[in-house]
């Protein structure tokens, strides 16, 4: 046999998690963008929501242009952060645990959580980008100009990406709870509504009662979308730094807890032997 045709199995497994992660993201991204009409319709639905909120807040804050700009920017930001693919990762992981297909993933050389999150980021990225494009368009059309300057736009992008990743990790965390519950769709609904309540999807954080603002100050849903939106519309360097640190802490924390739960949960797995 020609030695050139023999490929060592070790060579097939890239060693760096960055290479594996980016490969997974790229493959699922390319798979997702094959259906353009669906992406565009999803984007138009996002635009419709923004336009509805635009008219709601323009009616409410008539005569107070600055408040209207802040409210509309905050809503656009929060709605973009939530741009993730359906079925949600929480539901998907829950189903894989329930029907036992998760055990097949354990045979693969990559970490299950890493693989699921990277694949899901790749699948959600086109939706995220399309919705971001429509959000920017809506801001320019409704306000007549883009409200953020150059530096603030870069910070907005960093905060957006962090919020997007944190939102996915929260979903993964709830999905892994499927080792202890029969169905995770309840957690998915609960997570969505917590995002709605504390994430500023309908009412920006500054308009919520003070007590709710205090309770939700460091909650992951608030840190993912509402707090960054507040920082961008009421800018201060101190607050920006605080939100960035909390976003990173939540990302690391959620990852660590999810990994621990996965390790504990996988011990409960019972394979029937019908591979």
């Amino acid at each position: 046999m020609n030695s050139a045709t023999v490929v060592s199995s070790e060579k097939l497994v890239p060693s760096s998690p960055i290479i594996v992660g980016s490969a997974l993201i790229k493959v699922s991204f390319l798979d997702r963008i094959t259906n353009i009409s669906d992406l565009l319709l999803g984007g138009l639905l996002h635009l419709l929501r923004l336009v509805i909120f635009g008219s709601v807040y323009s009616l409410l804050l008539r005569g107070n242009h600055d408040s209207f700009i802040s409210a509309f920017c905050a809503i656009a930001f929060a709605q973009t952060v939530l741009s993730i693919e359906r079925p949600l990762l929480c539901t998907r992981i829950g189903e894989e645990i329930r029907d036992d297909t998760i055990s097949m993933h354990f045979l693969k050389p990559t970490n299950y959580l890493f693989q699921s999150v990277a694949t899901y980021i790749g699948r959600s990225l086109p939706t995220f980008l399309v919705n971001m494009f429509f959000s920017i368009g809506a801001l320019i059309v409704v306000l007549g100009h883009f409200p953020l300057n150059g530096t603030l736009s870069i910070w907005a992008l960093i905060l957006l990406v962090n919020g997007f990743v944190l939102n996915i990790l929260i979903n993964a965390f709830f999905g892994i709870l499927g080792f202890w519950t029969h169905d995770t769709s309840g957690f998915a609904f609960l997570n969505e509504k917590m995002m709605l309540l504390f994430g500023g999807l309908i009412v920006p954080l500054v308009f919520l009662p003070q007590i709710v603002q205090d309770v939700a100050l460091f909650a992951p849903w608030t840190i993912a979308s509402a707090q960054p939106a507040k920082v961008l519309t009421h800018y201060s360097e101190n607050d920006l730094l605080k939100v960035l640190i909390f976003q990173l802490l939540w990302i690391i924390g959620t990852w660590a807890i999810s990994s621990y739960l996965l390790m504990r949960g996988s011990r409960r797995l019972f394979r029937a032997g019908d591979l």
Partner: protein
Amino acid sequence: MSRFSSYVQLTFLQMWMGLKSAWRYRTSFYIETLTMVINDVLLFCVWILFFHKFSSLNGWTIRETQILFAMHATAFAFVILPFGGILDVARNINEGSLDQFLTQPRSSLWRILTSHFRLNVLGDLIFGIGMMIFVAFHYQWQLIFFVPLGAICEAWGILMVATFVQLLALFISRFEQASVHYFWALEAPALYPQNAFVGGVRVFLFTVVPALWIVKMPFRFVTEHGVNYFFIAIAFDIFITICVVLLLKTGLRRYESGNLIHVNRF
């Protein structure tokens, strides 16, 4: 008429069987139903917080939101509980798996629509009925009759428009996700104050996504007791039903089987 009543009976029977089957797993039954009730309550809490900050939006207050939620949650349950397969029509067409429904003696569209039972919508029904009783006690006792009538009217509209869009998969390939997006676009305006839709948005919601025909007309019938609004909503429902029937007749001729039925020779 007897044909119609047999369909109604069968629909209820299928719903009952779905409920009985879900009842076998009690814990799951309670959790799924309860989480949907909590889900609706949390959504309503957002609007309570909203109207805590802004007392009125163009004359729209928390009272209108309560009535709208009572009507819409009930209508949503009226659609999805018996016709849980509504979001799967386009997928069935795309996968060529309509054959199993086409070979059955009853209407194929009715069979597709009733082919799936979604338990969590029971939570919407409980929330809707609870809210209906609340608004009837708090504002006007007549609402206990008007809200269910408005809900039936809205439910029929949602069902027919959503079915119409799902059936477009007979003409457009890979349309399943797009039709699901459309369904949520149709449902979304029902959760917002109806007075907020002005100008271009209003035109859009009367034409491309006809949510205002479906939601606003029955809502005005419920709140203002104007019979004309009820008849407008009914007329729209009849019109869209005719469109669905025509689309189905034309579209089925273009349907390509997925060859999923195997005949046993022996």
